[in-house]
């Protein structure tokens, strides 16, 4: 075990006397190898093949580095690019790559590796799920659909150290976007040698702080420190092992047995127990994730009536759900964009009585007003509103759905709960077969645009088909605005517009839940829940 024998862990075990270190049969391992439990299996080391699981970014951000990187607290730092210039119109970015950037085989990381990586991602033959992340780049969409050749993509290597990126429009979140793994470089020289097999473990080279040496599917990925990494001297760990642990409770057991230094996520129902038994190791922090209920705005659904939407949203007691039902492992929310997004103030929905007074904090007044609205809309206990509420099958979603439907019962609402596995759930709601549906969104990058894009008319993940000309106009204006403050104001106005329409029911913010050995330094809870191992060290 890499830990310094876990005295703190054993103190908390019920039968500590028998748990002598000498009796532990786990073999001793390298001095400073970090063991991280991740909740899923990486799809590939080829960044065009990533399936989008949040566990995948933990491995990828350790083995690759993009133009920028993140500090322990989530701040953006120069990465492969030592510096960059932005043109006055905000559409052209010139990146100056660092002199000492090298792949793990000693070859330099050049601007061509970025050009190749991005073209590879957008190549229709790569069939990348996440290719659309790069659509802000000139011709990216046309290249991805095969309408234009790869060479037309708006990214060029002026010389080995200079990368120029042309954007369709000023994209104020572009630097934030560069933290996403779709923008990492891929090694052109090994691609030319091995083709598709360039990510085989025998051929793979990486440019991050660590490089993979072993992959046992469904068990673990092992990496060692990359000696060619430009800051290799500052990397404290000799290597990192990523253990695939889908069963969250099993992950907790293995952490408590001292087999893991970090467990990325534990079940929310375990929180109070863990907080009591291993308080120093139990982390919970705000996270860029929004949990909400979608209203169906398509013709023929009762949720097209704004009074019904307002009443339903008003009657949801978010504190009760967050505190009593979920034991504080979610935070109550009145906004769609989660709090904590950079350069943005989340807009809260305001509930008002018939005279226009703010009654958001007065639950009794809210229930009264909600009843009035329902009556106005023509519903009563004799003529109840029947709604179909869909959610994907997990204990958490079920608890919330049951609680919410009981909160609506006094309004004369009869809810039919329908649950299905995630694949079926999202397909069904995309087809519009629901009145109200559970949804959630975890930010890909720290910018409000990430959320606001979901409510545009016709947007792919706009499950409820919300459509507002005013909203679309504000969104569009914000996208074209270079000035950060002006853009922020426009985006905030857009969110406020959608909330005033009760486009959806904002309900909860996600939190990140990690178990972290207190003997580690360099871990900081942050809103992105990104924790590059490069900063972590193990105290003796």
């Amino acid at each position, binding site marked *: 075990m890499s830990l310094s024998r876990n005295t703190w862990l054993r103190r908390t075990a019920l039968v500590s006397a028998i748990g002598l270190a000498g*009796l532990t049969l*786990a073999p001793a391992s390298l001095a400073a190898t970090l063991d991280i439990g991740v909740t899923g299996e990486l799809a590939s080391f080829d960044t065009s093949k990533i399936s989008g699981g949040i566990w995948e970014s933990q491995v990828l951000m350790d083995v690759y580095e993009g133009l920028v990187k993140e500090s322990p607290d989530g701040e953006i730092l120069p990465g492969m690019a030592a510096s960059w210039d932005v043109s006055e119109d905000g559409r052209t970015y010139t990146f100056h790559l660092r002199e000492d950037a090298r792949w793990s085989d000693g070859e330099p990381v050049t601007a061509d590796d970025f050009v190749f990586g991005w073209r590879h991602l957008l190549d229709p033959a*790569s069939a990348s799920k996440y290719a659309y992340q790069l659509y802000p780049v000139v011709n990216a969409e046309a290249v991805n659909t095969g309408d234009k050749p790869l060479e037309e993509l708006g990214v060029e290597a002026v010389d080995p150290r200079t990368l120029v990126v042309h954007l369709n429009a000023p994209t104020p979140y572009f630097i934030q976007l560069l933290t996403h793994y779709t923008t990492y470089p891929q090694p052109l020289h090994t691609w030319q040698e091995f083709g598709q097999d360039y990510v085989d473990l025998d051929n793979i080279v990486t440019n991050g702080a660590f490089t993979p040496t072993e992959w046992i599917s*469904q068990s673990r990925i092992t990496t060692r420190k990359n000696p060619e990494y430009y800051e290799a001297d500052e990397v404290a760990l000799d290597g990192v092992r990523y253990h695939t642990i889908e069963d969250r409770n099993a992950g907790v057991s*293995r952490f408590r047995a001292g087999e893991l230094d970090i467990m990325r996520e534990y079940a929310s129902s375990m929180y109070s127990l863990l907080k009591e038994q291993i308080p120093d190791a139990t982390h919970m922090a705000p996270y860029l994730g929004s949990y909400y209920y979608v209203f169906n705005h398509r013709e023929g659904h009762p949720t097209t009536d704004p009074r019904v939407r307002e009443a339903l949203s008003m009657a949801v007691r978010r504190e009760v759900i967050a505190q009593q039902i979920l034991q504080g492992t979610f935070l109550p929310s009145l906004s769609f964009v989660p709090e904590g997004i950079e350069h943005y103030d989340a807009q809260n929905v305001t509930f008002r009585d018939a005279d226009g007074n703010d009654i958001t904090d007065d639950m009794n007044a809210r229930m009264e007003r909600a009843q009035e609205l329902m009556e106005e809309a023509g519903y009563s206990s004799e003529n109840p509103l029947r709604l179909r509420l869909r959610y994907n099958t997990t204990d958490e979603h079920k608890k919330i759905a049951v609680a919410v439907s009981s909160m609506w019962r006094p309004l004369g609402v009869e809810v039919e709960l329908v649950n299905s596995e995630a694949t079926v759930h999202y397909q069904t709601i995309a087809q519009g077969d629901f009145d109200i549906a559970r949804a959630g969104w975890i930010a890909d990058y720290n910018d409000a645009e990430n959320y606001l894009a979901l409510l545009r008319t016709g947007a792919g*993940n706009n499950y409820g088909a919300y459509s507002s000309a005013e909203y679309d106009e504000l969104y569009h204006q914000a996208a074209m605005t270079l000035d950060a403050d002006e853009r922020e104001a426009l985006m905030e106005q857009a969110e406020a517009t959608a909330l005033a329409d009760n486009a959806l029911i904002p309900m909860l913010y996600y939190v990140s839940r990690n178990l972290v050995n207190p003997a580690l330094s360099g871990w900081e809870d942050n809103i992105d829940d990104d924790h590059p191992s490069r900063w972590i060290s193990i105290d003796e």
Partner: protein
Amino acid sequence: MLKYTLKRLLQAIPTMLVVITIAFFLMRVAPGGPFDGERSLPPQIEANLMAAYHLDEPLWQQYARYLGNLVQGDFGPSFKYKDFTVTELIMQGFPVSLEIGGLAILLALLVGLPLGVIAALRRNTGIDYTVMGLALAGIAVPNFVIAPLLALVFGVLLQWLPAGGWNDGALPNMILPIVALAVPQIAYIARMMRASMIEVLGSHYIRTARAKGLTETEVVWRHAMRPALLPVTSYLGPAIAGIITGSVVIEQIFGIPGIGRYFVQGALNRDYTLVMGTVVFYGALIVLMNLIVDLIYSALDPQIRYDD
């Protein structure tokens, strides 16, 4: 015997074809596809994905393509685990499942058979009731309860054994999963052995053996044991096929890289090729195990002979 074996193997071909066909079309009937998820994809990206995996072709053409590849031993690429082909996933995971499952069955036989015999010989005594009571508990308590309990007691509290992880098959890592897998099997085998032993002991030829003046030990070992093993043997065929293809619960709780999880995950992810790969593999194993059981039958019971 050889002729019989060959005949049975030939008969397996149409059986497998039916299994493959049903599985192939059932999977396509299930709502949702391999690329549906929490985030709906832009249509052009979905089109790229469909084309890359030939899902844009008519269904019969996909079916023909699949059969064609299968004949050449190619199960296709996994839709989800993109750095591996289905063959690689099965070849990497099966030895692990085989090792754990094989040892679990061995342990189950070593413990279950004697327990069953003892219970039968001491019928309606305290020993019998204790053994059968424990066996009932072993069947009643599901392994998603037994496994975390074992991990908690021996891994977290006592720290005698690792709470999980495979560690390249180190013995300490294998003990808890093997025990967790074996417990319900021990229970089944003990109950079955007891019942069949009691039946055999009541038969005429045992009375004859006793009348000849043989000792009880000789009666049990020379005359009762072999026929009493028959029901257990026929149970073992499918049981072994089931247990060596892994258990999703045991694998997830102990972090074992076997193939059991692929059955469930493949289906949930609509990973068509992975589901088909596991179905074909499992189907072939069942056919094979049943054949072996039938051959063992003839060794145990002289009345059963397959050659004309």
